[in-house]
């Protein structure tokens, strides 16, 4: 290496090095994310059909108008928001409680942790098919248990008042272990001496949690809530395999509706409009996360 090239490396080279490093991921995102996203937004403004994906004409906001005039759209939106909200509340609560339960050492903790992680480790499709059998009205294990207790069999997936709860249960079972893992990592960072000091000052367990533990794990809880909410908005496999969006649309989320509109009605334009609404919903969740995060930081600073 000549002294000149060494000088170049410490001068201009240093200046452009970050851009060189950022270029590959940027190119990846541009090809596999931003371009498809832009294309989807464009498709939502056209009357493109699945059978002729390059032949649509520009129709402006007609697809959105059609959606807003359709009562089914509001049902779908309600189901999506409710599904995401319930999944976040139950998934994060259960995951946090589980993390607190296994945070302290006890005999068999590694085994307990492995078992509790099972739901997250099993592939969604395999898990959904197993749950499908467990929910089976005639020969499923849940109804066998109810029958052995002398209770009536339940239509877990085929009745409008049970189907939603059933898919939420599967989702929470799948999501909670991930939350547990994240919160557990956050709990490891809570200094023992601060907790000990609070106890010496006479704080009970609940007060220690509220005053010491919670502020430490709050950023992780916020982040994991954001992730679970966005995943719930775009979750397809569990819902599609268990109920297909039924009965009577009671579990039909935006993503299920996208599939139905694109592949049954072949209306790619309308399906893309559904997708755009889903994207707005996810961005809204991210915005709420951003605002609450800023508020939390201000509160912590005071």
């Amino acid at each position, binding site marked *: 290496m000549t002294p000149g090239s060494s000088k170049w490396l410490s001068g201009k080279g240093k200046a452009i090095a970050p851009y060189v490093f950022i270029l590959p991921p940027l190119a990846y995102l541009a090809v596999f994310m931003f371009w498809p996203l832009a294309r989807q937004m464009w498709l939502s403004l056209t009357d493109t059909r699945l059978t002729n994906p390059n032949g649509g004409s520009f129709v402006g906001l007609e697809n959105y108008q059609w959606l807003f005039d359709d009562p089914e759209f509001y049902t779908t939106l309600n189901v999506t928001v409710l599904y995401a909200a319930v999944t976040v509340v139950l998934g994060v609560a259960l995951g946090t409680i589980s993390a607190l339960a296994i945070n302290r050492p006890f005999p068999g903790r590694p085994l307990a942790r492995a078992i509790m992680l099972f739901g997250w480790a099993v592939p969604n499709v395999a898990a959904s098919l197993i749950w499908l059998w467990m929910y089976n009205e005639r020969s499923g294990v849940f109804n066998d248990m109810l029958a052995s207790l002398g209770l009536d069999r339940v239509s877990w997936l085929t009745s409008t008042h049970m189907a939603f709860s059933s898919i939420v249960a599967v989702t929470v079972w799948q999501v909670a272990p991930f939350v547990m893992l994240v919160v557990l990592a956050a709990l490891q960072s809570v200094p023992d001496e601060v907790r000990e000091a609070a106890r010496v000052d006479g704080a009970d367990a609940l007060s220690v949690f509220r005053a010491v533990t919670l502020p430490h794990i709050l950023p992780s809880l916020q982040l994991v809530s954001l992730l679970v909410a966005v995943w719930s908005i775009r979750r397809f496999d569990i819902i599609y395999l268990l109920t*297909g969006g039924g009965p009577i649309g009671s579990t039909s989320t935006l993503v299920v509706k996208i599939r139905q509109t694109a592949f049954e009605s072949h209306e790619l334009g309308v399906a893309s409009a559904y997708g755009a609404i889903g994207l707005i919903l996810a961005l809204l969740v991210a915005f709420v996360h951003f605002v609450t995060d800023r508020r939390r930081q201000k509160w912590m600073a005071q």
Partner: protein
Amino acid sequence: MFTRARRSFLTGAAALIATAATAMTLNASHAQEPVTLVIANSQWVDALRGKNLWNAVQQYQKVAPNVTLVQEAIPSAEFADKITTEMAAGQGPDIAMMQDGLFYTAADAGFLVDISKAVEGVENLNATNDHGVVNGKRLGIAWQRAVYALIYNKPLVDKAGAKVPTNVDELIASSQAVHQATGAIGFISRHQVSDLTGFFMDFQNWAYGYGVNWVDSDGKLTIDTPEAVAAVTAFKKMYDARIIPVGDDFPTQRTRFKEAQVSFGIDNSGGTLNIASGAALAPGDLAAAPLPFQHPGAHQQIFLGVSTHSKHQEAAIDFLAWLVGPEGQAALREASGPDALATDVPVTEAFQAANPWAETFAELAKDSRSTLIPGYEVQTTQIMRVVMEAVERVLVADDDPQAALTRAQRKIDAKRF
């Protein structure tokens, strides 16, 4: 004059012979080129039947050794989505075996080539091929037509002393009688909109059985007719009788039938052959009867089509020409059970003897109807989604059949198909 005329005749003849010889050489060289034809079919994944059908089509390689046939096996639930997406992207198989709904969609989108050359000189094409002609072009040839019948497990029905039903009340009574006597499931039926295509095609038997047409004489869609209300009411009565395994998808219900755990079902001949193939229920213990309705039922039709995106369209058409010829039809007959084929090839005596249920299907095929709505073939799935959602409201939410179908009619009128 005579000499000149003779000379010009000889010159012309020589030119003709030379042209013919060149063409023959070209054809011969074309025929020798190695060609791979990809054939998409959901039936390839069927246990036993798929293997038998594949062995049948592979016999083509004896007469065309330069052609290699390759399967594109797609489960039926995903077949239409995948083929439509592939073809729309300019890809996909050379040849596809498509349910009639998908066939009309592909034809409407211009994904299929004219294959009239494949049937040139074939005198005995039967009526199953009629709908393969779209806008004056032959775009499809019948692969199989599977008619629906009432099927039952004879030993179970005999053991319970139950009657083979001829109407819905008897169907419910007999199903309950077999269940009480043997513990077997009374009846199997699709009943969930999550399996839309299968559900609406099976439901057409109930609709047609009660005289439903879905269109009037002017071609207007008629959903809330008294006949349709009667059909939905009858289906609801069956559903409420709790004779079907509610929540089970149809492959599971078929598997239960195969395992001799079911007494009655309404299924097509292809599905019935699947049930009768290689499981606990011996083919001789399976029986078939006319549907328990007043009017004839439905059939499912599968068409063969050649993709416009195929790079070997001529080779694909040559393959189809062989398939509708005597050799191809004979090979297909062996593997197709009682399904109607492109030509009238009778089932073998050996098959008939081993599968006594097959004869009923052949009889019912004479007046069965397509599951597609005449004049609305491409839109049938969308129209039937609205209808089946109304049916689901009746089944699950105890909605009134008349009110549910009236709302469906309004919805369909608003969509202006």
